[in-house]
């Protein structure tokens, strides 16, 4: 045989890449115990984990009470999740009339189903748009009542999760297109449009959301003719949209500036007009580039909806706080806040996860 000819093209072509993984032990040796410094760090971290994790599990799961009363909880050592289970309806729905709470629950379910269904880009047809219209109408009807024999409920009594989701979903979906328009306006050659957009963006970004909310609830009504009122939730909603749009605008502007001149010229040379160029060529690419920073803004805007407490709206965080003022449950803020944090986390995680998937799906480079 020709075993001595090690370097014939055939044998070179058959060469496999060198092995990098040699089981768990090999991995640990390579990553956790390579050198004395890393070994010491690994041991310290393991010790800290040993100190914290078992007591935490003990507190949260093993010794915890789930359905006890406040008094019974005081006797136990572990977490008192009963603060959540006993008050779940108030935390989730606030002052919404007790026997009618199936209505906001159903509204939230419809919203979540619509969101889940809309995730898939294959579902993005006109019918989905109508689905949203019908869904929104149904949600509004369920919350407000007054039609089809549903008992009317004052919007002052809306609260908890539906309010938070309402403010967030509407706020973010309305803020995004407004922000895109502001970004385009800021690049406009028409001086009036351009300066309006610049002033708007800089003004709003220079002001904290709390002050906007405060102005919308206290200052703005002063300018309305006597006897005329605008719903408090709507005013908060508008403030959130105005605020978030300014941030979106700057992020989108960054994406627009990243577009090469050649794309504009190619579109122009085909005879596309400004709106077609933006809609078909520039925005699809620019918005794709800015998915990560936009989602950061959307996530922080979602969490900022909790600031509406300043104008006495009972969002999820406020209903939780209110629960904790009950003397029976006073000492259990950790448990209650962990629960609320989980809800916020699930929503934010959903957003960031989805954005990463969208980025991957829209990637056309290879």
């Amino acid at each position, binding site marked *: 045989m020709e075993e001595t000819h090690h370097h014939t093209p055939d044998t070179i072509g058959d060469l496999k890449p060198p092995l990098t993984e040699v089981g768990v032990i090999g991995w640990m040796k390579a990553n956790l115990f390579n050198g004395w410094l890393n070994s010491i760090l690994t041991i310290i971290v393991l010790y800290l984990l040993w100190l914290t994790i078992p007591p935490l599990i003990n507190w949260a799961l093993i010794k915890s009470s789930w359905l006890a009363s406040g008094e019974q909880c005081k006797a136990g050592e572990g977490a008192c999740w009963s603060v959540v289970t006993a008050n779940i309806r108030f935390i989730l729905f606030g002052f919404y009339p007790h026997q009618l709470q199936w209505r906001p629950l159903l509204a939230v379910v419809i919203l979540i189903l619509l969101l889940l269904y809309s995730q898939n880009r294959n579902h993005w047809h006109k019918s989905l748009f109508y689905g949203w219209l019908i869904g929104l109408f149904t949600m509004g009807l369920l919350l407000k009542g007054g039609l089809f024999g549903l008992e009317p409920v004052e919007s002052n009594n809306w609260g908890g999760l539906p309010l938070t989701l309402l403010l967030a979903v509407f706020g973010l979906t309305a803020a995004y297109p407004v922000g895109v328009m502001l970004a385009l306006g800021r690049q406009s050659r028409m001086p009036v449009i351009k300066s309006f957009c610049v002033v708007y963006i800089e003004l709003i970004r220079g002001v904290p959301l709390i002050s906007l909310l405060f102005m919308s609830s206290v200052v703005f009504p002063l300018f309305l003719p006597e006897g005329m009122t605008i719903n408090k939730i709507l005013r908060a909603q508008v403030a959130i949209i105005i605020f978030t749009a300014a941030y979106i605008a700057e992020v989108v502007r960054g994406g627009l500036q990243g577009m090469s001149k*050649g*794309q504009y*010229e*190619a579109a122009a*040379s085909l*005879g*596309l007009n400004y709106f077609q160029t933006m809609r078909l060529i520039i925005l699809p690419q620019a918005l794709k580039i800015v998915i990560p920073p936009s989602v950061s803004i959307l996530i922080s805007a979602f969490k900022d909806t909790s600031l509406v407490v300043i104008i006495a709206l009972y969002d999820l965080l406020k209903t939780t706080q209110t629960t904790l003022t009950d003397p029976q449950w006073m000492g259990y803020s950790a448990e209650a806040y962990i629960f609320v944090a989980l809800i916020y986390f699930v929503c934010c995680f959903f957003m960031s996860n989805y954005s990463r998937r969208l980025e991957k799906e829209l990637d*056309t480079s290879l």
Partner: protein
Amino acid sequence: MNSKQADQTIDQAAIITIENMHKWYGEFHVLKDINLTVKKGERIVICGPSGSGKSTLIRCINRLEEHQRGKIIVDGIELTNDLKNIEKIRTEVGMVFQHFNLFPHLTILENLTLGPIWVRKTPKKEAEEIAMYYLEKVRIAEQALKFPGQLSGGQQQRVAIARSLCMKPNAMLFDEPTSALDPEMVKEVLDVMISLAQDGMTMIVVSHEMGFAKSVAHRVLFMDGGEILEQNDPEEFFNNPQHERTQLFLSQILD
């Protein structure tokens, strides 16, 4: 040469007329007193050192650059600030860029159907048929559903040519179509351009591909310092250049 036999197909009607045209970038006088008439079916190659204004000149023809003085008339329409006229002219004059400028977020097929569907209002199905016809023509039909980033430079440039053709333009402008390509891909693009020439397309090509100029052009223009210094049929132009700067330029690129 074969393609030159089409000489008699030149119509006497002018499709592009440029009269006493000037352009400035700020204080800098890029184009000086340009006069040029392009007849239907005529093929012109413009060459000259970099910075001579040759790209700017053809970019003025579809108003990617604005001229400040003089007249440009394309297909009977004078270029002014009127947006409608500009868009009309752009649909009649195709352009191929040095860096292809395909739309990376759209498939090859979508790149080609975009103009016909949105500008010409062609039904989608018909637009796709047109697109496939031209993709066949540039011999790249099997790539129709890929994205531009998945193709080689030469393939992308052929797609870009097909994209312009889908608008059924009356004239085509080429802005250094092969100068961003790896050497082995230049020929495939030139072959497509030669076959276009054989079909009688009116072409203005900014290029240093002298072989292409010799075999396809009716007229070669030499520009330097923003002026058209010399123009002649290719044979005279290459064998007997009149202007000393033309001689210098040719000696530099034909060594």
